[in-house]
């Protein structure tokens, strides 16, 4: 009882505190202040392998800069709520690593500082990753490594069926059909009703010349029709509407699909399966000779407004994370592609399995470059259209027309 009573008193004072809501501190970018000796950092590399790889990077930079790094890791879906809570109670971490399409949302709150204030330049980076990290003409986030999607195939199954890894849509269609037998599907991909589904569809959408500003264009309809036909013809399971990318990899590893659309981060896991022989090729394109255009993935580092000394310290740590040796170390450990063109070329040469991914990054696009803060709404509309077409609820053209309306309103 007395514990409860004391708790109540505490809580009541909490409510009072909350009522006279704190005035925003809003310190200036804080050049000139001496860097703090320790900072807090927030990321979503929660799994054992990713967490250990990231911890090594942080340890390296902690010893290089002499700044202690207090790390916090949250499950992926909790990242944005956590950042918004931090923004509203002025308890943001000093250094933040978040998925690149959410960077502009966070920047829009006004809680981030431009990175040029810390001597971080974007020279030599892929243009698309710089765009992803920019908001209203200023760079707020830069990634040490990026990723993208490619077509990963089971060598044994393709050889047995006498199928070459497909390069074009026609070849993909034919190969998937031929590989579909004995309860196995030719292709697996993810089309769930969220950002993940959009991200998986964008390589088909963009490679065919469609634009996010007009979801119901002829190119867009053709891309959606192509994907829908793969499912309707039985070459891909109807379950793609419920599989996230992780499930897709599970299906591939279990031998239920001969090919899958998935990212480089899976390679470590595929390597663990001794009996599985896989190969990687770029995402097939509409016509031979065209360049695949995938969406750019990866987490960008940003420095929230937390006060001069901590901001300077966070800037120093971020600079270290973006230095070439760390970039290479991170890319190797987590199967990412370095975000600087020259570093990536060096990296690709030494990692044959990564070459297809490295090649694609050159033409990859940032999801938020054109739409900025409006992207999430458009992405949601596109994912809805994808689901409507794949479940047969609406034909592709109608589904996309509805999506264009929903995203425009």
């Amino acid at each position, binding site marked *: *009882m007395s514990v*409860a*009573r004391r708790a*109540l008193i505490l*809580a*009541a004072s*909490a*409510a009072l505190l*909350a*009522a006279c*809501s704190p005035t*925003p501190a809003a310190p200036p970018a804080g050049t000139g202040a001496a860097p703090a000796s320790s900072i807090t950092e927030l990321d979503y590399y929660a799994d054992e392998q990713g967490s250990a790889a990231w911890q090594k990077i942080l340890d390296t930079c902690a010893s290089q800069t002499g700044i202690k790094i207090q790390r916090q890791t949250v499950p992926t879906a909790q990242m*944005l*709520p956590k950042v*918004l*809570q931090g*923004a*509203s109670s002025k308890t943001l971490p000093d250094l933040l690593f978040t998925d690149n399409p959410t960077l502009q*949302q*966070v920047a*829009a*709150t*006004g*809680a981030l500082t431009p990175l040029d204030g810390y001597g971080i330049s974007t020279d030599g980076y892929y243009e698309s990753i710089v765009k992803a990290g920019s908001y209203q003409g200023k760079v707020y986030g830069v990634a040490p490594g990026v990723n993208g999607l490619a077509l990963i195939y089971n060598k044994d199954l393709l050889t047995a069926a006498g199928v070459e890894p497909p390069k074009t849509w026609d070849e993909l269609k034919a190969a998937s059909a031929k590989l579909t037998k004995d*309860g196995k*599907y030719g292709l697996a991909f993810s089309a*769930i*009703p*969220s*950002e993940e589904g959009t991200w998986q569809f964008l390589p088909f959408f963009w490679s065919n010349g469609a634009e996010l500003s007009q979801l119901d264009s002829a190119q867009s309809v053709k891309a959606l029709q192509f994907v829908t036909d793969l499912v309707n013809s039985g070459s891909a*399971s*109807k*379950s*793609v*509407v*419920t599989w996230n990318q992780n*499930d897709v990899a599970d299906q591939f590893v*279990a031998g*239920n699909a001969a090919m899958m659309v998935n990212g480089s981060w899976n390679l470590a896991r595929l390597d663990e399966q001794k009996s599985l022989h896989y190969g990687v090729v770029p995402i097939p394109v509409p016509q031979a000779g065209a360049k695949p255009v995938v969406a750019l993935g990866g987490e960008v580092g940003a420095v929230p407004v937390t006060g001069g000394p901590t901001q300077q310290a966070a800037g120093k740590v971020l600079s270290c994370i973006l230095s070439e040796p760390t970039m290479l170390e991170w890319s190797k450990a987590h199967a990412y592609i370095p975000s600087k063109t020259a570093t990536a070329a060096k990296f690709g040469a030494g990692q044959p399995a990564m070459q297809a991914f490295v090649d694609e990054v050159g033409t990859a696009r940032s999801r938020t470059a054109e739409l900025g*803060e409006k992207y*999430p*709404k458009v992405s*949601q509309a596109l994912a*809805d259209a994808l*689901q*409507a077409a*794949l*479940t047969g*609820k609406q034909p592709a053209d109608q589904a996309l027309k509805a999506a264009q309306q929903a995203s425009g309103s």
Partner: protein
Amino acid sequence: MTLVAPAVAAPPRAGRKPRRDNRFAAWLFLLPALAYIVVFFGYPLAANVVMSTQDYTVKSFYTGEAPFVGFANYSAVFGNSLFSTAVLNTVLFTAGSLVFQFGIGLALAVFFSGRFLGSALLRSLLLLPWLLPLVVSGAIWRWMFDQDHGVLNAALRFVGLDAVPWLSSTGWALPAVILTNIWIGIPFNLVILHGGLRAIPASLYEAASLDGAGAWQRFRHVTWPLLRPVTGIVLMLGLVYTIKVFDVIMVVTGGGPANATQTLTTWSYRLSFQDFAFGQGAAVGNVLILVATVFGLLYLRSAKATLAEAAA
């Protein structure tokens, strides 16, 4: 549970203290709970109501400023084509879950309240589903529902039936999440109803048996009427818990396919954290609270009747 049978004889005393004394004591006993409610629910509730009348954006989180827009968020929500879908799904989900959770829970409670070897142990084992984190039970059900390799369809094929596209068809996805939610909800219904059954004095059943009542008649004329206060509370709590179910749907279908399992709760979350229309998300949340208010009023009316019975 409390087995104070209504039939317990009370000592024949009749002295009473003045009512005022009584009321003062009631306040004292209620004070901790009242304070807790005001502090822990008052602020979130008020914040949600205020937010629903504002154009609340991600920026508002940082600056604390959001322009007042009156009922614009509500009209935007009501005008959204997803609103009717979400309402219908919410009604179906809630009704489907409640009916079967309660029905199965009651049947099991009656069955396991009989004394037989291992009845107590088996009954407590049935609570185990509650101990699993939802990310785990959701994943298990997703595997079991898998159209091609799931164990449910394997069982259907085994008995000669067709495989069911549980999660990939717009028609089956809602039944599938309802099934999952029923499974999760049975233990709750079972335990509380079991407690209610235990409070019914055995002498009433014996009397009914002497009068020649069969098992069904005993249930109909003894169990059911005496269980009413407990069924009221189970159904009302069940309604409140079911209508706001969020994680189960998010883990199993994410609201898909093609919004087939989008309920008001998942939609509210989506409006807030995927569309960043926090005002509209809050508005949907308030609509839910309003719905609960209506049901709460209905419950109160029936509870008053029960109270009157108890006092009689």
